């Protein structure tokens, strides 16, 4: 028994060490990013590199705001990313449920077709897609950015994979109790999938938060720029506004932080276990 506790302690210790190393490796570049946001451009290239934050953050921020109307871009990014995430969650969970728990004709071919579209390089889809949006008269609209990938192949795939874990017996017994098919979806499938939905929400939000190439060709008015578009204007062949880019990045991370912390609490155990016991 003592052997066991020592083992346990060792295991705990090892786990913590591993976690700390991974976190450190991942966080150091970010920390450095934040440091560079607090120093003036002229010190950006000083050697050895600065590791202690400076006091220039707000000066850089003011320059950024003057240069790009960054606050507006944050608002635009939020509107687009949030509406996109909600819409896409709904579509993906519905379709994923069908692919995981129903039998229907062409199920496999349809699914593999969705998967194949995930592989198509977005770089090449941009030209025909832009053309389509011009025809719709939707250039310079948020809708044109939100809709095309609202049908997100990745989201369907993730939902399908996770929903396969819902025991068929659970659905069957609910059916016996008189639940309708639609209730199976929103009363059983959705609640049991909350951790996965939270993960998917994070993924979708991130996808849209960072999207660059496609929004770039669609959103041409500077008032409609998202954060990545506003940042792209700070990069020139002969001059790059590193200080402002880093300030912008430090700000752009905040919403992700918030999204994470908000969705964290849904990463809880036993949701499915609870319903199996019924």
């Amino acid at each position, binding site marked *: 028994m003592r052997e066991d506790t020592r083992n346990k302690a060792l295991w705990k210790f090892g786990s913590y060490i591993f976690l700390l190393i991974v976190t450190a490796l991942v966080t150091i570049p970010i920390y450095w990013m934040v440091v560079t946001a607090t120093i003036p451009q002229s010190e950006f290239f000083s050697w050895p590199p600065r590791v202690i934050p400076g006091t220039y953050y707000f000066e850089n921020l003011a320059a950024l705001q003057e240069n790009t109307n960054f606050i507006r871009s944050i608002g635009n990014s939020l509107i687009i990313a949030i509406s996109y995430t909600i819409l896409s969650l709904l579509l993906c969970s519905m379709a994923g449920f069908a692919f995981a728990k129903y039998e229907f004709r062409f199920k496999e071919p349809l699914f593999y077709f969705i998967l194949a579209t995930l592989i198509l390089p977005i770089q090449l889809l941009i030209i025909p897609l832009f053309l389509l949006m011009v025809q719709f008269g939707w250039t310079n609209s948020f809708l044109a950015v939100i809709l095309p990938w609202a049908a997100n192949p990745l989201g369907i795939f993730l939902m399908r994979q996770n929903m396969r874990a819902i025991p068929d017996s659970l659905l069957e017994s609910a059916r016996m109790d008189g639940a309708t098919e639609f209730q199976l979806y929103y009363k059983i499938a959705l609640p049991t999938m909350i951790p996965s939905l939270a993960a998917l929400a994070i993924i979708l939000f991130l996808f849209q938060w960072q999207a660059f190439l496609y929004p770039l060709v669609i959103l*041409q008015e500077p008032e409609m720029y998202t954060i990545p578009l506003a940042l792209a204007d700070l990069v020139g062949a002969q001059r790059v506004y590193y200080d402002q880019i880093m300030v912008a990045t430090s700000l752009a991370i905040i919403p992700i932080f918030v999204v994470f912390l908000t969705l964290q609490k849904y990463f809880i155990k036993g949701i499915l276990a609870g319903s199996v016991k019924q």
Partner: protein
Amino acid sequence: MTMTRRTTHSVRRRRLLQALGIAGVSGLAGCVSTGGDDDTDLTGWGWNIAAQSLQDAAVQYNEENGTDISVDELGDDAWEQRFQTAITSGEGAPEFSPVQNYEVASFADLGGLTDLTDRIDEAEIRDDIIDGKWDTVNIDGNDYALPWDLGPTGVFYNRERYSEAGIDPDNIETWDDFIEAGASLPDDIAMLDLPTEEIPQLWRTLFRQLGGQSFTEDGDVNIASGESVRAAELIKDLDDAGITTRVEMWSGGWFTSFAEGDILSMISAAWMDGTLRAELPDTEGNWGVYKLPAFEEGGSRASNRGGSNLVIPSQIQDEEVVEEVWEFCLWSMTTPEVQNTMLEEYGLFPSLATAYDSSIYEEEQEFYDGQAVWELFAEVAEEIEPYRYTPDTPEVMNALETELNDMLDDEQSPEEAMENAAETVADRTDRDLA
């Protein structure tokens, strides 16, 4: 009254949104109206410096002519991606835009640019702009762009360190002199930076200095020519002499190396002036410029690096709009005062030779310890050999990068490198070897 494409789109967009019942969601649909009174507004796109200098010009032009011309400023990659998409999809291009030298041929070849030959003839400006520039905008006998700035080359050097090492730039007349001067430096100080991405650029600078052409007039691949091999040999000599270092260009370390005097010279062009002033203000007074060393005594000391031109996309089909844009482009590109303002404010060196008469070229500049560098660049500009670009120029640069690197790793001789590069280009572009 003209109706621009943008207003047409916004009307159609509104109609479609209404049809879908979502016009009320204005936050989602974005700015549905583009202003209303914009019947004559003309919009150009440009990357940072090009856009800013055109914006200044447009302000003056609008005041004088009551027009409504504006220029959207984009980052480099943003301009590239957006302009390419607009041209290749045939929709959504601006009324005018600057285009880099090496890209004019590609866009023109696609049929994306308006043929300006007749307008240029009519304006009688051919003699006002230096000869070396016209081949850049000419594809198969037609001109598809209005020449703007160019990049007359020079060697920027660190005055203090040169004199400490006893190097007199006036005595560097040939590349041999340059290598010799570099060899006299201590080991930890480099005469020149030669990172991977610079190598094909340097090749082109040297190749143009020798008057080489990548493609013959018939379109055959000509990069295994004598000039090409000589340029490659010199790159190898520079590398073998141990006078170079490899610091990534435009990186922080790169700027620091120049500021600290770890790298003493830089082969670049007139536009580098603006970058140096912006990034290294503390180095004022310590810079100087001399012309590229010649391959042999008395040989050409001029080449070109970079430069751009103004184009009108062929999607702009309304004759009145084209005419109005053309008038603005012509005025801004061929009015000496406008061009010289762009030089002073943004470091864009005009290809408009009539601008060189201005007294600003003789000005002694503090940044260069009293040297009149614009005069030097103007002299270089007038000696630049014409150079033909083709849509396959990127293939040439790509092949050269690989082969020249193998050459520097001693895997092949300069002749072999250029022959292999020529074969690669010929194979990839279905062209013949010259």
